[in-house]
């Protein structure tokens, strides 16, 4: 076992951290959130140029041949600066599915430009009724003229408002809750009969509700095999969850460090408030939760591409539950210890608080991941085999 970063990984971390500090401090996010797009095309192109978008993609399609952990390390640093560009929906989710399932032509047309920062992607899977159940899919794709016609609605699509292409989960057979019968399609963001209803979120990021009212796609827009999309969708959403843990780690770390700094600086009763034991113990517990978030995040990032889906699910769920519960402990206490100023928009801590809360709710909350964990075969296989 060795959990040190490699030299290359340490270099990536240092480079991104420096870039965030100089080029993308929180003030840039504050400007972006005032715009409609809520992220900046030039910055995205620059990230492509630096190679950050292709870090975990194969070299033969323009990537750098790294693994998911490399992307997670970048995301953690982006999280520290609240960088609003659509790394998770585009690089981690939509792009991953195109790489895994797409033909050479798909990769060349949709992936290579994204890796260069010229385009961006999204993944549309959630529906009003589906909550976190990926099998629950009402959006339909009917075969017509050799291609498909999509009808239905997808909600809270990250980067759905701006994506050039959107990977869409739609039902090609079966009933609402069937595992089988879900297929994945690449749909252009400006396709005819697709309406994008923009919705700005609590965290200042824009998302979209997508309404498909007879959107026609050719047979070349099907990703992978028909009716067999669910396991791939589960993997992509797990990647999203692991990525949320990585970006969330940046938020948790910032909130923790900023709070400790404030405890040393803020004086009441003629002493720094950090000298009070009640607050020291709170800070010690925040430290503990921050470290546990880091431990589980690393584990999830390492195992998210495991060949064994049970291992992937176990580690991603453990990390997501820790980000959601342990991370919450850090963020609620950060605001409490800052006092009234922590509830003002001018103070950055509230921005981290909101982004972190959004990441906690995405791709399954703690209850969802606990329920999923206990349903794994490995959960009780050992004791049942004893009996």
């Amino acid at each position: 076992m060795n959990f040190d970063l490699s030299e290359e990984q340490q270099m990536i971390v240092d480079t991104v951290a420096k870039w965030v500090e100089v080029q993308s401090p929180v003030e840039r996010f504050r400007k972006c959130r005032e715009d409609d797009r809520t992220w900046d095309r030039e910055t995205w192109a620059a990230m492509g140029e630096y190679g950050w978008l292709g870090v975990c993609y194969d070299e033969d399609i323009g990537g750098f041949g790294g693994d998911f952990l490399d992307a997670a390390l970048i995301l953690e640093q982006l999280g520290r600066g609240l960088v609003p560009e659509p790394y998770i929906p585009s690089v981690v989710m939509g792009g991953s599915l195109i790489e895994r399932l797409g033909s050479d032509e798909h990769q060349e047309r949709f992936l290579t430009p994204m890796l260069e920062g010229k385009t961006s992607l999204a993944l549309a899977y959630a529906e009003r009724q589906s909550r976190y159940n990926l099998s629950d899919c009402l959006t339909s794709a009917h075969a017509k003229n050799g291609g498909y016609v999509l009808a239905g609605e997808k909600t809270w699509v990250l980067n759905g408002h701006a994506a050039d292409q959107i990977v869409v989960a739609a039902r090609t057979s079966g009933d609402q809750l069937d595992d089988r019968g879900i297929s994945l399609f690449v749909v252009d963001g400006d396709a005819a009969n697709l309406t994008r209803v923009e919705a700005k979120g609590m965290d200042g990021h824009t998302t979209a509700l997508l309404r498909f009212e007879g959107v026609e796609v050719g047979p070349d827009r099907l990703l992978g095999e028909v009716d067999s999309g669910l396991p791939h969708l589960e993997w992509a959403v797990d990647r999203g969850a692991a990525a949320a843990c990585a970006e969330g780690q940046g938020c948790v770390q910032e909130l923790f460090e900023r709070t400790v700094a404030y405890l040393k600086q803020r004086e009441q009763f003629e002493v720094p408030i950090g000298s009070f034991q009640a607050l020291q113990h709170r800070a010690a517990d925040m430290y503990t939760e921050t470290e546990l978030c880091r431990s589980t995040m690393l584990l999830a990032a390492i195992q998210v591409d495991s060949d064994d889906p049970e291992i992937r699910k176990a580690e991603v769920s453990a990390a997501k539950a820790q980000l959601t519960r342990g991370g919450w402990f850090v963020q609620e206490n950060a605001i409490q210890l800052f006092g009234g100023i922590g509830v003002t928009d001018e103070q950055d801590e509230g921005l981290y608080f909101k982004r972190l809360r959004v990441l906690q709710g995405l791709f399954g909350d703690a209850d969802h991941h606990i329920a999923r964990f206990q349903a794994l075969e490995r959960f009780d296989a050992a004791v049942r085999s004893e009996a």
Partner: protein
Amino acid sequence: MEMDLAPEHVAFREEVLDFLAEMPAEFARKARNAHYFSHAETMEWQRILHAKGWAAPNWPAEHGGTGWDVTRRFIFTEELARANTPELSPFGLVMVGPLLIEFGTDEQKQRFLPKILSGDEVWCQGYSEPNAGSDLASLQLRADKDGSDYILNGQKTWTTNAQYADWIFVLARTSREGRKQEGISFLLADIQNTDGIDVKPFLTTGGTTAFSETWFKDARVPQSNRVGPENGGWSMAKALLGHERTAIGGVSESGGWIQHVKRIALKTPLGKGTLLDDPGFRSRIAALEMRLRAVTMAQNRSLADAQLGRAPGPESSILKIVGTETYQEITELAMDAMGHDALGWKDSPEEVLPDHEKWIASRFNYLRACTIYGGSNEIQRNVIAKRILGLPS
């Protein structure tokens, strides 16, 4: 990053598991059912390990230890804890033994080490006093010089195993000058053959004896039984606290307990099925198991650092707090799993309380101590606040 153990460590784990599979049947039954092991059984287990050459994983080979690297030691400890084998008394093997190896005279090493290893002499620790708990340096047990002896007067408490012990190591006050840490010496006293040492065990809430009180009234200890310099005992004590920090949080024990909670749930009827079919209860187990994974990963990061020869990193300091708190929560869940059987006690008849539940209530009670001993969790939080976060006094 490399998640996996090196091949030689994987092979070593197999070797340990093979050894455990050969455990005497009576030990195996008790271990499988999460029983408490008596002092006599624990010493018997030490003799079994000693015969294998495995009694002292953290001692150098020249003194009869295994000479294992830190990862082998960890694997060994982990597998034994997970299997719920008797926990060997740490006072000789983990505490005073390594201290003697590092700071003892040649005579002291020859006199004490072989019998610590074999278990022929049982040791206990005399640190805490009624008025010196978390503030240990305020201890008052007097050691006054008289000829070639010290004369000891005062009281120690929480002297775990003193009722069985042949020897006790004590921190005693040999000077009242300077800072309170500076007047302390580290002495070894022969409990069985010294007049004026009296031991009274406490019955714990677990219904077993573990800790006791030890009184010293004009008890004579030769000066040659001092370890390290006079008034240098505090640094001895601190060196001791640094030993084997990675194992203190009960993380491996918790792993064994999680399995046992599932075992209880599987054997607990609920309607037409079992408690292990109940999604609500399964989710409670899952939440704790996920938490335990987080702690285990933190522990592995700490272990990987230790294997590379680094001092314990900041992540190791959280292991005591979150490890023991998780451990306790798992024992609480075991009690919940038992339902009405949680009314029972270790001497309830087996037709009322099955063997796999017999000791749960006792151990649940006793393990309230794990957040208190080894430096209470509040003291650990003080340590984090001051040494890691740099918060002001």
